[in-house]
């Protein structure tokens, strides 16, 4: 028990995600997990370690390297009443399954005139920052957020890692969950939710009055670090974690900008056509007259992510870039 009377336990983002999957498997026999190396290996990021032993190979299914087919099979199983959790190792390989996600999962309900909902959850790792070079460093969640018919989530905290899966499985439509690779080792206390975790609302991770730092996923820790630095300089930044990239919480974005009149949007994807671009457009649409300065963006440089450490660091949004952008807006 914590001092405030709520139960707390120390855990990691990875374990929180595993616990969420475990809970889903226990509470609903329609739920199963499939993907490459989710069983014997324990998941390429260790998320599903131990689940094969606990639930057996029927429900923890190792697949061959066949992304298009096992994602498509997940969609089919969802049509037939199952509640599949499909793990794609990383967003980079989801491109092989993009056709199934876009042309089947996202469209079947509409094309069938409402007859065929697809209650599937597809999880994958995203992001750069570990010197894995161009083909293993993509941040394509913004592409997926372009697609009507699916919900796109980006849990950035241990709480969201633990509590987003259940409502995602309860959603009758396809839900994509993007887990930034840099977050798995995040550790801390996990509090039980005081209210049901919703999938619709952005969260204020740090309140502030001078500028809004709007971000999601793996960039949240960087934005929080930037807010600390700014605070030391007397600038109170509000940090907004979007949590859901589709649908976007327009009201939360507008409310924050109305409080602070300045905004920096931070997104690890490339700048052009990014989710950051969409957020900027919405600010321009809804909050134009609230702004006291042009909206700033901190995105990745428009280059395939290079291997060399210095080059990679220079390509990705860093805390110092966020601080500098905030200063441009505030000063």
């Amino acid at each position, binding site marked *: 028990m914590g001092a405030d009377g709520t139960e707390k336990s120390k855990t990691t983002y990875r374990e929180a995600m595993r616990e969420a999957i475990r809970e889903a498997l226990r509470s609903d026999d329609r739920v199963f997990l499939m993907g*490459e*190396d989710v069983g*014997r*290996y*324990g998941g*390429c990021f260790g998320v599903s370690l131990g689940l094969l032993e606990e639930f057996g190979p029927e429900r923890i299914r*190792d697949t*061959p*390297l*066949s*992304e*298009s*087919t096992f994602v498509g099979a997940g969609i089919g199983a969802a049509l037939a009443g199952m509640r599949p959790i499909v793990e794609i190792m990383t967003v*980079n*390989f989801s*491109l*092989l399954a993009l056709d199934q996600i876009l042309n089947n999962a996202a469209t079947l309900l509409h094309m069938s005139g409402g007859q065929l909902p697809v209650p599937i959850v597809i999880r994958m790792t995203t992001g750069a920052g*570990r*010197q*894995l*070079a*161009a*083909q*293993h460093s993509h941040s394509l969640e913004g592409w997926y957020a372009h697609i009507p018919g699916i919900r796109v989530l980006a849990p950035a905290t241990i709480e969201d890692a633990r509590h987003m899966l259940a409502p995602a499985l309860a959603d009758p439509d396809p839900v994509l969950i993007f887990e930034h690779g840099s977050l798995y080792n995040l550790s801390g206390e996990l509090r039980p939710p005081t209210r049901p975790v919703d999938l619709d609302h952005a969260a204020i991770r740090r309140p502030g009055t001078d500028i809004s730092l709007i971000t999601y996923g793996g960039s949240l820790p960087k934005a929080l670090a930037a807010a600390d630095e700014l605070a030391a300089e007397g600038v109170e930044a509000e940090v907004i974690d979007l949590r859901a990239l589709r649908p976007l919480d327009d009201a939360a974005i507008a409310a924050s900008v109305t409080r602070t009149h300045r905004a920096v949007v931070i997104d690890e994807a490339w700048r052009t056509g990014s989710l950051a671009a969409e957020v900027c457009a919405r600010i321009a649409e809804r909050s134009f007259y609230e702004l006291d300065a042009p909206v700033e963006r901190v995105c990745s*440089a*428009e*280059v*395939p992510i*290079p*291997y*060399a*450490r*210095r*080059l990679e660091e*220079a*390509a990705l949004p860093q805390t110092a870039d966020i601080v500098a952008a905030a200063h441009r807006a505030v000063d």
Partner: protein
Amino acid sequence: MSLARPARTRKATAAPKPAKKTARNRQGPRTAPPADRSAAQHRANLLESLLRIRRFEERCVELYSAAKIRGFVHLYIGEEAVAVGINQALTSEDAVVSTYREHGHALARGIAAEAVMAEMYGKATGCSGGRGGSMHLFDASRRFYGGSAIVAGGLPLAAGLALADRMRGQNRVTCCFFGDGAFAEGEFHETANLAALWNLPLLLACENNLYAMGTALTREHAQTDLAMRAASYGMPAWAVDGMDVEAVEQASRRAVEGIRTGTGPHFLELRTYRFRAHSMYDPDRYRGKAEIEQWKDRDPVNRLMERMRENGEPVDEELARIEQKITEEIDHAVEAAEKAPEEPVENLLRHVTSASTGPVS
């Protein structure tokens, strides 16, 4: 096996040039199988190539622990006979498409240890200018079309290289390396079909090391006879002992000769084993120590040395000479990589489009 260059069945617009015997490609592919009198010398050369890969990667492990090398590193240790054997059958005119487990492919192709090591260090002098790292080694001058880190991603590309040669009447072969895991991807099956349909000069070199990361062959394929399945696409296909460099060489020569005579794609299933984990991140929990030890008994380096011994060849002298030469080579490569300049951050946006490439230094 015929030693003569096979007759061309297609009209050629440009005759392939013989490989230049320069210092640069001294470790590189040769054009003809060794005559009997030089068989001993040839085996010594094979041993050198095997050991170069082995020692290079052993050094990489040390450098990874010392955080000199980062990112994903996939070791080829145990599988060296595949790259070395196949490269014996290829000329410098042929093309190679590789995977993320490619140090062996690159070194066997004749890319200098120095250029590969500098790339592992992420230095400007690396064979990909520090942009690629371990998984993305390239050398256009050697027609080494490099490491693709998307499983099976290199296969369609290799078909295209072969298609261009076919359309231009160039009697060249494209060799594509890929794993047993890649065999499950649609891209393999689509490539096999297309290559057979269009009679493309493509060597499909499937490195069957029995695992795709932690998933054993028997749990990723309903029918584990990969050569048989490849044959169903209408191409010659056979399985080879991938732990025996001479067997690999022989099979590759046969396949490449077939391809050069215009009989279309060939498939080799190289039965091999990786002695190390899938990558530096892999705790290797999915297979038993005993299994690994059993395969180590078939170590391609020892295997070749045994054969040399059986033939009365001076193994120990050769070994001492080779080890010394390779140690110097790798020491030099590490030293050079340590000293090499980093790519200036101002050059971050270089090579995104050809306009941003400028003269390649």
